[in-house]
């Protein structure tokens, strides 16, 4: 009796070793059903739980670390979980039911879960321990590769499997030369047959990645760091980075030392229990039913089984199922599932289209689908997997099977129809094992209307994201007209590609003209439109300074005539006043210009300068000539580029000023003027935290304090209002200059056209930006240098150029007719 009471009042202690995706998912399931546990996690990595599948998009630059966090700090707090980050368990005292950590923390447990995952296998060739040899396993490896890529040079990736190829593609997009070494005759031989492997190799080679199959690494060369790789046949390949992606080994050391039954992995029964009834194991470290797993879907199934057993008696058991393979390389579509080795009694159905570079193969045995390999056209992957799982007899549709689901029973080739035809138990999200029925039910029960809702409630499309289209189709079917499919991600009607993809391709394929981009990226229109052309022109200006010739006809009128068009077709003219400082002579010249050209409105702007409104187009050149003569240049008030640097009077006059904010503002504006950026860029420097120059709502701001300069960015004060976020503090004006040049350049290189700096920062992550433009001094310096280089070609006053005769056709009519005379 007392014992029972005792159990009810005291929470049981659950200790978890490891904080990867499997235990994270296990806890989610556990907290849904019970709060009987007090949970403690020890994580050797100094981080919260993040999505390892998404490291490849982080490497390629499509996502940031912030995007791939699964459980933020708040989640642990909310569930009362104690998380020891960066502390590794070194010993399990099974007889005492205690674990001991490296830092000396001792924790008692009622139940223990070992989720130590796996270690990358490093081939023990000479030189494998040189600096510059990396595995591809966690965020540190990914960061290491990104850093190495910034230095340029050649990366050699050893291993042509899933991870190796994703690493190769990412490094190529980061601008490195890349060679893939693969021991076997074709790439990804465990997931693909030789034909699909060949197509994949061709695709990678067309992207400039060198692929060497049957390449046996003899040694890694280099004295203090990697310099090259020598193959068994004597070939030497220069390399500044070597990535080993040759496989993983379950990390069983801790379990082994604790005397648990260990084979290839930590042996568990189908309930995920190890040979000790108080110890469970989940994840890549596990061997269950004689199998070890590395893809996320089975790991998540383990997590669910373990959670149900931890919550109480249960029938749940882990069972093996085929997991489809997909490669996360943008533009390389492949899908494989099941068994596709040649064998007795097996039939192949193959469809090739050399023109489109597609290949489909379905493997049958006893009139049932046992495997499928798809390359290039993977739309029917889910359907073949469904046929495989259900074990349905396909003899009726054998003739048309290879053409896909849309061709069965005379159905139309409508993607929604294909999804409508799927049964409720068809798996939509392979990573999370979410069926169509589950999604439909959640939409109906919870009134979900957006993809984000569905992700939050069902987890579907929440991991690798390749099923997003399918999930949207299910939503479309369930909600009918209430659901609008998000518009194709294309930047305009001329293309299906998004900004990120286009920017990467411009660099990766070295596209240096608008027609080249349109040709290579298969624009749907011959000349583009008023949306995409200015974007492409900006990307090319930003990416190829000194090489690309600005296409005036792809610029919006304001940037073509260097003035702002007004509603009546006249223009406004704003000369630059560096840091908001002017002189009596400048003011006199402005007054004279206003009189001479009958300019109706003279207005002081919010950016501390003077706007002349209502200038006729024909008068622009003479107005500029007069302003130039008085020493003034274009203020670029029309530009997607640097606008103003607003200042206060700082130590020159103000009794509260802590630094020379005016002087610093002028210096910044002198360094930054002329720069084009994704959207307009406005700065301010304020002499003390009283913030008279309003630096904390600018794109980039500097707040002077006694001890130095606080740099902030990402403010907005337009349709959307938001304060800035700190980037970091520096001690000297030189550091302010370098940091702001680096930040601006990073924005210029990765921003989407018309994306203001706060939106950019929201998208790619404030932490990440801080790392690049502030923390990492090397990166900061190199971005600032690139900015200064690009400025060499940008700091030319466009007014003076045009006064001297450039683009003369813009400023005068072609002809003035006199009708009477003509007749």
């Amino acid at each position, binding site marked *: 009796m007392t014992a029972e009471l005792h159990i009810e009042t005291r929470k049981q202690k659950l200790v978890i070793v490891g904080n990867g995706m499997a235990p994270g998912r296990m806890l989610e399931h556990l907290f849904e059903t019970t709060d009987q546990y007090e949970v403690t996690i020890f994580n050797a990595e100094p981080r919260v739980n993040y999505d390892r599948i998404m490291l490849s998009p982080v490497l390629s630059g499509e996502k940031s670390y912030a995007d791939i966090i699964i459980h933020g700090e708040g989640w642990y707090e909310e569930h009362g979980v104690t998380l020891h980050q960066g502390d590794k368990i070194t010993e399990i005292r099974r007889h005492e039911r205690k674990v001991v950590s490296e830092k000396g923390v001792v924790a008692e447990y009622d139940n223990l879960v070992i989720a130590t995952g796996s270690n990358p296998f490093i081939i023990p060739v000479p030189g494998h321990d040189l600096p510059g040899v990396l595995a591809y396993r966690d965020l540190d490896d990914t960061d290491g590769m990104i850093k190495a890529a910034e230095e340029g040079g050649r990366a050699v990736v050893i291993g042509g499997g899933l991870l190796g190829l994703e690493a190769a593609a990412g490094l190529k997009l980061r601008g490195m030369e890349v060679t893939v070494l693969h021991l076997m005759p074709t790439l990804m031989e465990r997931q693909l047959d030789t034909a699909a492997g060949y197509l994949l190799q061709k695709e990678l080679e067309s992207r400039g990645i060198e692929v060497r199959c049957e390449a046996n690494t003899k040694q890694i060369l280099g004295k203090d760091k990697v310099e090259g790789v020598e193959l068994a046949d004597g070939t030497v390949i220069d390399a500044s980075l070597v990535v080993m992606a040759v496989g993983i080994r379950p990390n069983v050391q801790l379990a082994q030392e604790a005397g648990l039954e260990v084979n290839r992995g930590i042996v568990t029964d189908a309930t995920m229990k190890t040979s000790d009834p108080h110890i469970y194991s989940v994840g890549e470290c596990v061997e269950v039913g004689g199998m070890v797993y590395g893809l996320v879907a089975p790991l998540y199934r383990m997590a669910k089984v373990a959670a149900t057993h931890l919550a109480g008696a249960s029938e749940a058991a882990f069972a093996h199922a085929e997991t489809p393979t997909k490669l996360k390389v943008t533009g390389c579509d492949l899908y494989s599932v099941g068994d596709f080795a040649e064998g007795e009694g097996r039939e192949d159905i193959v469809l090739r289209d050399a023109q489109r570079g597609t290949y489909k193969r379905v493997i049958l045995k006893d009139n049932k689908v046992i495997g499928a390999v798809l390359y290039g056209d993977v739309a029917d992957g889910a359907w073949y997997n469904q046929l495989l799982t259900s074990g349905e007899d396909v003899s009726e549709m054998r003739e048309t099977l290879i053409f896909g689901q849309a061709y069965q029973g005379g159905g139309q080739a409508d993607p929604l129809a294909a999804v409508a035809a799927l049964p409720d138990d068809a798996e939509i999200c392979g990573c999370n094992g979410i069926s169509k029925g589950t999604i439909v039910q959640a939409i109906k029960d919870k009134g979900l209307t957006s993809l984000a809702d569905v992700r939050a409630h069902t987890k579907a499309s929440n991991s690798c994201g390749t099923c997003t289209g399918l999930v949207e189709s299910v939503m479309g079917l369930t909600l009918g007209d209430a659901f609008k499919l998000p518009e194709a991600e294309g930047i305009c009607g001329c293309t299906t590609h998004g900004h990120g993809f286009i920017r990467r391709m411009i660099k990766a394929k070295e596209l240096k003209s608008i027609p080249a981009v349109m040709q290579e990226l298969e624009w749907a*229109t*011959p*000349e*583009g*439109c*008023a949306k995409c*052309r*200015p974007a492409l022109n900006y990307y090319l200006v930003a990416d190829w300074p000194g090489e690309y010739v600005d296409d*005036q*006809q*792809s*610029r*919006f*009128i*304001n940037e*073509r*005539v260097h003035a702002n*068009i007004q*509603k009546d*077709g006249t223009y406004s003219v704003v000369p630059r006043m560096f840091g908001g400082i002017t002189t009596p002579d400048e003011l006199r010249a402005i007054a004279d210009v206003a009189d001479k050209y009958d300019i109706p409105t003279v207005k002081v702007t919010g950016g501390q300068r003077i706007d002349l409104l209502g200038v006729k187009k024909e008068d622009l050149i003479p107005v500029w000539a007069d302003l130039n003569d008085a020493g003034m240049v274009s203020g670029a008030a029309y530009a997607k580029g640097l606008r103003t640097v607003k200042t206060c009077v700082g130590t020159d006059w103000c009794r509260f000023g802590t630094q020379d904010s005016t002087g610093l503002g002028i210096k910044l504006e002198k360094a930054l003027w002329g720069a084009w950026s994704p959207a307009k860029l406005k700065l301010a420097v304020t002499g003390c935290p009283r913030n008279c120059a309003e630096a904390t709502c600018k794109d980039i701001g500097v707040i002077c304090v006694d001890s130095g300069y606080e740099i902030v960015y990402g403010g907005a004060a337009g349709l959307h209002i938001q304060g800035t976020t700190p980037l970091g503090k520096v001690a000297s004006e030189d550091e302010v200059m370098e940091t702001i040049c680096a930040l601006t350049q990073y924005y210029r290189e990765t921003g989407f056209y018309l994306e203001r700096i706060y939106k950019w920062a929201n998208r790619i992550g404030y932490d990440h930006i801080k790392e690049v433009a502030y923390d990492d001094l090397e990166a900061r310096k190199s971005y600032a240098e690139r900015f200064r280089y690009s400025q060499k070609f940008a700091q030319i006053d466009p007014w003076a150029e045009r006064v001297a005769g450039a683009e003369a*056709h813009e400023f005068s*009519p*072609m*002809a*003035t*007719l006199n*009708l009477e005379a*003509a*007749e």
Partner: protein
Amino acid sequence: MNMQTKNWIDVGSLSDIPRQGARCVKNGEMTIAIFRTADDRLFALEDKCPHKNGPLSQGIVHDGCVTCPLHNWVISLETGAAQGADEGETASFPVKLDGETVLLGL
């Protein structure tokens, strides 16, 4: 009707107009924009968007259309009609080339 009063007036040479661009011809109170496409076809429209009279000559020229600089209406160079969901039409004029000479029909 038009045929009777039509005069072909020399307004300049082809090279005066940038490809994918336009130049204006002042005709009394009216301004006529002459557009040159990427493939050297010429079109003439009154320089007034049917929406809010924006100067079409200042817009971006693409695929036989011009996008008005004020509010992004897309106008067909051939017919002067607004494209897509917008409705309205700008006057168009005949224009042709005689060798390098641009002739505007008024």
